[in-house]
């Protein structure tokens, strides 16, 4: 995957990290501290938040000092091709049932990633059916994993 080095992106990330460190400090106040314990359970997260804040400040300074570079093309499409169908799969599985959702996901992903020819689509259908049956036999029947049932199963 193309990487983005230095510059404004790093400075932006540093601000997000500083916000995260701030959030940890702020929420750490709410952590209950049992009596007679010299070190509160909030102590370690606070130390980490402090370390993160220092690192983020260095990253911020480095980012602001670094020369601006042209960012390479972001891998938006590959990420969408994976996370889009995956999110739909994860949402559908509890509703439709794990195996029907798995069939639809493997089919959709196979068509999206492969060539859109009749032969390729036929192959995607076969792979989706094979994967679903194999998952059922291996995981549900043999390894006794209980998957979400849903409407169809």
């Amino acid at each position: 995957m193309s990487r983005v080095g230095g510059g404004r992106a790093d400075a932006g990330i540093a601000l997000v990290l500083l916000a995260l460190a701030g959030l940890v400090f702020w929420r750490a106040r709410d952590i209950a501290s049992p009596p007679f314990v010299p070190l509160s359970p909030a102590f370690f997260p606070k130390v980490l938040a402090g370390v993160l804040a220092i690192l983020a400040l260095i990253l911020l300074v480095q980012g602001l000092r670094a020369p601006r570079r042209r960012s390479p093309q972001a891998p938006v499409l590959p990420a969408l091709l994976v996370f889009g169908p995956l999110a739909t799969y994860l949402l559908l599985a509890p509703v439709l049932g794990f195996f029907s959702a798995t069939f639809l996901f493997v089919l959709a992903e196979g068509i999206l990633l492969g060539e859109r020819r009749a032969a390729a689509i036929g192959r995607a259908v076969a792979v989706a059916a094979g994967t679903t049956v194999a998952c059922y036999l291996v995981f549900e029947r043999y390894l006794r994993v209980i998957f979400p049932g849903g409407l169809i199963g």
Partner: protein
Amino acid sequence: MIAVGALASAAAAVFDPGALLSLLAGVLVGLVGGAIPGITITMTIILVLPFTFGMDTVNGIATMIGVYVGGESGGLVTACLLGIPGTPSAIATTFDGFPMARQGEPGRAVWLGIWSGLFGGLIAGVFLVYGTIWLGRLALQFGPWEYFSLFILTLSIVASLSEGSMLKGLVAGTVGLLATTVGTDPIMSVQRFTFGTDLLKSGFPFLPILIGVYGVTQIVTDVQRLREGDARLKARVEQARLVVNHLAVIGEVLRGWGNLIRSTLIGLWIGVLPAVGGSAANILAYDQARKWSRHPERFGHGSPEGIVASESANNANVAGSLVTIMAFGIPGDAVTAVMLGALLVHGIAPGPLFMTNNLDVAYAMFLAYFVACVATVAVEAAILRVFLRLINVPRDVLFPVILVLCVIGAFALNNLWADVWTLFFFGILGVLMVRYGFPLAPIILGVILGNQIELNFIRALMTNADPRLFLTRPLSGIMLFLTLVSVAIAVWQTRRGARAEAVEAEG
């Protein structure tokens, strides 16, 4: 030194037909996964893990060791036949394996690699047994101060050796540690950062994080490569004539015994050192082999010494990293982090008490390692031709199936669908991290070591409130000093690199 009773029960468990079969299956999957460019050993281990959930401890761990050992060997097939290393551990194998194959000796190239991997692996196995016992005893003398310092040293080395900037490595490690503070704290069982939801009460489960950060991120990277028409993902292995005179090849490996032993020792040493990883072992061993060789000019043109050096080193590296995992509970790199995760899933907590508390499991791991080394050769001899076909599975067929296995792996451990969403969000985090140059290994190490670091840190301060003890106890002090040295070296290297880049840009 070896407890016969425990050894016998370990042997009974490992040589049980069912266990042997699953170990063989592990080796086969490891070989195929290691051979396919774009599918790393780490990914293969992640994918096999859910299949082992239902197995008993020894069976499951033996299978995972099979995958690990097989995976290290699998990369050499594509390295020799295609000139593309199946895994980073086989990079140096391409330097001479591919030229030798192109000169009409593909069988000799592949089998030199396989046999030297076996010999290197077996020699290193002896060290695995005795090294683990010895280092385990040393680790027994560690108090919480030493443990804390050792974990911090490991994390800092991983961060400073990671690809990209050390600063980003340290940030990634700290974020990983912070992730472990969500949920119940390991000492007082107090709820932290749960935001009132039941889902976060037990914290983020580490396996879905691991699978999301490595597995899903790897798939997105590969999909991008696939769309860009990357030759590595489209290359096909043609059926080649791989029949050889095995005695002649074995003789060739053993005649260069100096090279074999030196490379094995390098592989072992790199494996034992936390954080250096298998990809460094084969390159370093190859480089040393060239320096010591009587025919350095042949390197890069099909020198058998080069193949022997690379392959014996990367198999020995497996034994070395298993020593560190078993004796200290510290993973050396991404692959070993996942292996450590696999052990934890099977209820084994590696570390100084591991040998004392689980002697039979430790022996079973040693035996499984030796069996896996031999099984790798047997499987390759039996089905090399089928194996070559498996490498050619189109990636658009493979990726959706892998994603389904990632989802099952995240779900099946606790049977919680919410864990699958952890996989999803950490997958997105992994992709963003790679995009902005943050290395992945430190965050995983942070997640795996987080609770241990906190536990030892707090224990040390509760035993004696004086924080100076971290510096004044000799071993702890040395390790913290080495932490500083590793950070200083990384800063120096980064600055030198930046200066060189600036000079190049001006020139």
